[in-house]
């Protein structure tokens, strides 16, 4: 009989220079600034809270309806509603830090210049653990309404600007959209622009048509598809990018619902894993997923979480 050697797995993980006590984080836009979820669990217990993308100015967002349920997922289009960076830095961020949580601050600019200004202001705030760059914002310079992420050169320009405006000790993560021609090229462009890590994947652009009205179910037509429906796609993207860029830390995001899902993303190459849409369905999901993940590790006799990062690449046929 094998003796159980590891009673407690070492959950600590690293995203480049950023050290987290465990790999479970919230996904941007699925946790507000932590305050709402703090009514259900202690936000300091998870790896980090990634805050909802903040813009320079207050933003009212898109008209309703903003949401439609889809098979194992949802379409949503909030249009980046938020209070603006001034209120975020005065009210929301201090609250989150006062709870002892680690804060990854997602930023969304309307222009490359705005990204730079946001990076400057956010990284100047005391206690910000990392900046995540939301590249799925419409590029105003492009008349077809394409996102920055749709063009690797534009994405790289944003990341380079953020990196040069952010304080050098604040890591920068580029959040990738993957409904693009070549996600590996996009990842390489962002890393070439000195992103410290990558977060993937953002929602996928999709549509649902109301069967009664024959109109798109969400205002504006297209919405962002999220939830377990996109998980295999997300895991596949993490796998491919980790294969191409094995040294670059990845935060895996997309339909995580259980501890086993975290294991799956990490085996594909992620060093941390975001819980997104599942927070809407289960407000205590983050701590549940962390507990389940810990149990899965211990059942497998894994001593350190770092051992499983990229395991699918090593054990593959």
């Amino acid at each position, binding site marked *: 009989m094998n003796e159980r050697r590891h009673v407690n797995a070492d959950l600590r993980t690293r995203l480049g220079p950023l050290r987290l006590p465990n790999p479970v984080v919230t996904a941007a836009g*699925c*946790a*507000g600034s932590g*305050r*709402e*979820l*703090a*009514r*259900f*669990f*202690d936000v300091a217990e998870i790896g980090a809270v990634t805050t*909802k993308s903040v813009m320079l*100015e*207050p*933003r*009212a*967002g*898109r*008209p*309703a*309806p*903003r*949401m439609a*349920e889809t*098979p*194992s*997922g*949802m379409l*949503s289009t*909030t249009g980046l*509603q*938020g*209070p*603006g960076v*001034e*209120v975020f830095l005065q*009210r929301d961020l201090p609250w989150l830090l006062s*709870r002892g949580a680690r804060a990854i601050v997602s930023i969304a600019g309307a222009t490359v210049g705005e990204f730079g200004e946001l990076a400057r202001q956010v990284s100047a705030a005391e206690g910000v653990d990392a900046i995540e760059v939301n590249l799925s914002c419409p590029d105003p310079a492009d008349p077809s309404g394409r996102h920055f992420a749709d063009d690797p050169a534009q994405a790289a320009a944003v990341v380079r600007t953020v990196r040069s405006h952010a304080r050098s000790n604040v890591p920068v993560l580029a959040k990738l959209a993957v409904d693009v021609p070549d996600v590996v090229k996009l990842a390489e462009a962002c890393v070439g622009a000195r992103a410290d890590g990558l977060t993937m994947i953002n929602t996928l652009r999709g549509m649902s048509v109301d069967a009664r009205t024959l109109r798109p179910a969400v*205002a504006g037509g297209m919405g962002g598809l999220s*939830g*377990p429906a996109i998980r295999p796609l997300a895991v596949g993207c993490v796998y491919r990018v980790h294969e191409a860029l094995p040294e670059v830390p990845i935060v895996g995001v997309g339909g995580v619902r259980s501890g086993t899902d975290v294991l799956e993303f990490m085996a594909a190459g992620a060093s941390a894993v975001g819980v997104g*849409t*599942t*927070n*809407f*369905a*289960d*407000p*205590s999901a983050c701590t549940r997923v962390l507990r389940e993940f810990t149990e899965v590790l211990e059942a497998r006799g894994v001593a350190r979480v770092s051992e499983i990062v990229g395991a699918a690449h090593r054990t593959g046929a």
Partner: protein
Amino acid sequence: MPGAHRTRLERLSGQMSDNGPVQIRCPVLNVRRVDAYYAITVVAPGIAERFRSGQFVSVAVGGEHSSTLLRRPFAVHDVKPDYGGTVEFLFSVRGVGTAWLAERRSRDLLDVVGPLGRPFPLPRDPVNCVLVGGGSGGAPLFPLAQSLRRRGCRVDFVLGAASADRVFSAITARRIAETARFTTDDGSFGTRGRVTDVLGRVIEEARSDAVYACGPMPMLRAVTQVAGNHGIPVQVAVEETMACGIGICMTCVIPVVGEDGVTRMVRSCVDGPVFRGEQVRFDDVGTIPFDALGAPGWKGSSAARATEPTRDIA
């Protein structure tokens, strides 16, 4: 369970209110038909003890591996002290989620979060209140009526629906209230017409001091207008679709004018569902008004930004 975290969390957060929500797996006590609706009663002491009228619960549907991820929000219709505390909510079957709920049986477990949202504010003095409900929007008015009665308020009911089988708990309404008036679109029960066709007269006859209403947006708009014409305050509980119910998904927003005169897109789930009727911009629901904080081209003062509500969501 989140309940286990509460004590420590409350110590962490001095601002946190006593009636913050909990997430509980609750046994179903019973499922019954009530006219065109289903009523489910769950044993949920943690929710029952925190509940105040106007608040709602959200219920996971389809089981642990369900492909319908989102919770369904329901107004609480009744809270009783039995079994340590029970909570009843009503719904009609409208899709796969509510169809699944209708098939629940006694002792099945439901994952319920609540109580959620801001409750109806109650008057300090024993004033006369008229409660107006449209369809299943009548549900939250029943615990409200009980609370008002306990404060010595006079309660009058006006309940309306499309047809007789959708008028809510008419017998209970008659029992609790001083008077109860009913309206149906097809005339199958009570007065043919809308609640607002009779509301003015009820307000005059009962010498009402305040109106409480819950139902579809067009009804709330019309009720607010009638109350305004009579110069009395109105509290409305909106029924918006929502994904999370706890304030993070930002999908249930409506335009509401704040105390400072600034319109903001606020969340029905945590900033509502109860609002002062005259503060809701009914004509602009479903749009972003051009003068809303952060609307495209908005050039508000930094003063408006600074007065962004800082009130605690709990």
